[in-house]
């Protein structure tokens, strides 16, 4: 059996579409479909059961008997039962269809059905009306139905939702056995619930299949896990530390004011009389071709460029070159760039990388307070890296390092966050991870963001000011 979705687009009511799905499910494979709310996971299951209008592309190779468990199917059955009740014109109280009939009418495999009933200890409700069951009970009944239709394919949409721990374990075991014979596609949003037999994981967003990975690929698996975590977690950006908070700025003053900024090397003029003012809470996108001087301008602001001392630069209330130290400037800035990642070559744990953001240092050279440690742990939880808190930073994947450095930049809630091509060098999934984190940050803080990026598709919601630098 091979199910093939070839550039399939399916239209549903309420203006939802599955778009251009390309996917192959081969025999011997078991898939989990993951994704945030509204990503289209259940729609995909529905499309496989024949719901929705195919507007283009092809869907081939579906077997004849498909066992389905989903809230949609459950709801449909309950509605059907309710209607029977409404349709009852006799003046007697309708008890609705008993569970026994729901299970055994049209059952192809009564033996299995009986086995499942015993397993789930459902005997006691066989004579009750299906529509009177609790959600968990009716879910178990749906499972029994799906498993006893001699299925050639099982479509399970959040099959473990609403199950108590014992039943969850029973079902996991049973599916494990069944997986030897029947291919399965299940929607799951908790990676810790993924059964051992699953071979592949797909990730959906906005009606599209964005990633399909082999579960054996540990790195891809971890990335997907984190992406899903960031998309679905209800955690928000941790608070800053009141004890290591940065001085208050005058809100009527700009954060940054560059007046006639000129950067030159020998006779070569890189930046010629640039004027730029950044107000508090104002987000900017900075663009320009390679060599236009984007990073040089940013490093003038951060104080890393030596020519900041020969220009008229006001940053965070300091007119540069009047006896301020760079640490007085840097305390107001969170900064992430590829160069920073290259320079962050010290032996340090993940937790301490985040804490180093309180000190604007590469490496940690101060004793961290318990409060700082706790804030760092909250960030790790947000990133889905809690279990790796004490691991060495250098052992992390490139994309995970980037995420961590973004958290480091934000840990003190700086008035200005500079993201210099934060997606540079990242593959697709890591790019999405970074963008997901940045969106989370932009949504929940009073930080002005300067975002440098060439990729127009990496736009971030909420940026309304643009500065484009030209070359020469």
């Amino acid at each position, binding site marked *: 059996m091979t199910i093939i979705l070839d550039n399939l687009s399916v239209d549903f009511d309420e203006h939802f579409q599955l778009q251009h799905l390309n996917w192959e499910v081969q025999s011997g494979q078991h898939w989990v479909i993951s994704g945030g709310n509204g990503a289209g996971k259940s729609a995909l299951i529905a499309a496989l059961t024949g719901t929705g209008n195919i507007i283009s592309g092809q869907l081939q190779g579906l077997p004849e008997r498909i066992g389905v468990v989903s809230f949609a199917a459950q709801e449909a059955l309950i509605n059907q039962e309710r209607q029977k009740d409404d349709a009852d014109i006799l003046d007697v109280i309708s008890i609705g269809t008993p569970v026994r009939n729901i299970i055994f009418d049209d059952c192809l495999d009564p033996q299995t059905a009986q086995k499942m009933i015993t397993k789930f200890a459902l005997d006691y409700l066989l004579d009750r009306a299906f529509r009177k069951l609790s959600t968990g009970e009716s879910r178990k009944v749906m499972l029994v139905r799906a498993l006893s239709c001699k299925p050639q394919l099982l479509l399970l949409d959040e099959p473990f939702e609403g199950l108590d721990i014992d039943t969850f374990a029973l079902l996991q075991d049973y599916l494990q056995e069944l997986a030897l014979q029947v291919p399965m596609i299940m929607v799951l949003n908790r990676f810790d619930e993924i059964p051992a037999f699953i071979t592949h994981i797909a990730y959906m967003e906005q009606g599209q299949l964005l990633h399909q990975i082999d579960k054996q690929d540990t790195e891809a698996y971890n990335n997907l896990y984190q992406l899903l975590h960031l998309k679905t977690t209800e955690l928000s950006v941790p608070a800053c530390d009141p004890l290591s908070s940065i001085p208050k700025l005058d809100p009527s003053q700009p954060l940054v004011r560059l007046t006639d900024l000129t950067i030159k090397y*020998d006779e070569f003029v890189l930046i010629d009389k640039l004027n730029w003012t950044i107000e508090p809470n104002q987000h900017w996108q900075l663009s320009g071709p390679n060599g236009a001087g984007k990073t040089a301008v940013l490093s003038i602001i951060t104080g*890393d460029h030596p020519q900041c001392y020969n220009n008229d630069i006001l940053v965070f209330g300091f007119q540069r070159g009047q*006896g301020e130290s*760079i640490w007085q400037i840097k305390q107001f800035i969170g900064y992430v760039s590829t160069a920073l990642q290259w320079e962050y070559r010290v032996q340090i744990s993940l937790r301490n990388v985040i804490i180093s953001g309180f000190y604007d*240092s590469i490496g940690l*050279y101060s004793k961290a307070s318990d409060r700082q440690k706790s804030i760092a742990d909250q960030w790790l939880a947000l990133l889905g890296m809690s279990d790796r808190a004490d691991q060495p930073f250098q052992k992390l994947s490139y994309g995970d390092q980037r995420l961590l450095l973004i958290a480091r930049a934000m840990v003190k809630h700086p008035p200005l966050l500079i993201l210099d091509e934060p997606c540079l060098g990242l593959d697709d999934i890591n790019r999405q991870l970074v963008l997901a984190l940045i969106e989370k940050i932009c949504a929940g803080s009073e930080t002005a963001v300067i975002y440098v990026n060439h990729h127009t598709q990496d736009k971030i919601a909420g940026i309304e000011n643009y500065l484009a630098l030209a070359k020469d």
Partner: protein
Amino acid sequence: MSNNYFNTLPLREQLAQLAKCRFMNMDEFADGVNALKGKKMVVIGCGAQGLNQGLNLRDSGLDVSYALRAEAIAEKRQSWKNATENGFAVGTYEDLIPTADVVLNLTPDKQHTAVVNAVMPMMKEGACLSYSHGFNIVEEGMQVRDDLTVIMVAPKCPGSEVRAEYVRGFGVPTLIAVHEDNDPKGEGLALAKAYAVGTGGHKAGVLMSSFIAEVKSDLMGEQTILCGMLQTGSLLCFDKMVAEGVDAGYASKLIQYGWETITEALKYGGVTNMLDRLSNPAKIKAFDLSEELKVIMRPLYNKHQDDIMNGTFSRVMMEDWANDDKNLLGWRAETAETAFEKTPAGDMDIAEQEYFDNGILMVAMVKAGVELAFETMTAAGIIDESAYYESLHETPLIANTIARKKLYEMNATISDTAEYGCYLYNHACLPLLGDFMKDIKTDVIGRGLDLDDTGVDNARLIEVNAALRAHPVEAIGTTLRGHMADMKKIV
């Protein structure tokens, strides 16, 4: 010719000055850079130390500019470029020196006399003259005007590291001193501390020492264990491996990166930890070899220390300065022609542990060199703290420069003074170890012990472990690394 200042002092004063070295507490730097705030600091010399210290000081909020010779400005020499591209104000000595509150002399040792003689008459009354090395004062007997304060702030790392660590938010260990003959206002210590804060040194640890202790220990360390031993060891180990049929590319790589790898263990846990990285039989082997090496090399270490103490070394070197560096340049050219230098490292992988297992002799050489340098220095009156920093502590830094670009890079990075001493050591040590090397086989350098049986005699192992841990360099090392770890979380 100059008068050696050290030799003019009575013995008790010599001993008192040599014994000065104290690890300072962080709270002694609570005043930050205030003592220098608003003062005009003028740097002379825009090389690696000059430029990078200036960048740090300016980023710490201090007023820094560079005085260059008129020709350097007119011809837009590298020093002029370094300063102007980094946005510093640049002027001639005549322009800047008379306005300076502090003049930072960051030129190479051999220019000190000329530079100080040129600037001293222009300096304003009561200003401060700062050095990064005490050679000019101690060995050349420079007499500085009575009204001037003379201090030393010596970051114990190459200039590039001084900057890199500062940018990370840290610093490099730094030695400070006040020349007591030139502290008319008693502000020398406050200025030196503020300067150390300005370069970030206070975060990594500051040693309060004396000009004399700095010079005599610095010269000893750099000539013997730091540069000399690693140079001689590299040449001997390479030639031996190749003669015994080890692949030349492998031999070259094992040495080039081996020093760095094994001394990394030294940095973290002293000689003990470096030997603990070996298997038990290899550890006992390395211990025995190092004991043998110490007996053979001790007279050489004594000679170096004696020549440094009585001024012979600096006198002979200054004769070469006067002779246009004929010896130095000749020896430098010879180094470039050695077989080790000319054989590129192979592209095979060598695992971290393999550097230990196949480099037992290198481990033995480091142990012997560190212990001998430490023992010789402390026997000459240098206090343990100074002796530790100038032997064990700096060895990994030099090993790191060899890993980057072999001996040539190492000699290019260190000062001419260190380089001169390194060649003297090497020329004496190569023949001295000739007989010893005859008995060396690839089991201790190149291929590792043939370990059919990893068993060792318990009593002997206990003896070796006890001897390792009982060496005085380990005691002071444990204490000082404890201070450092408080400041820099190493793990």
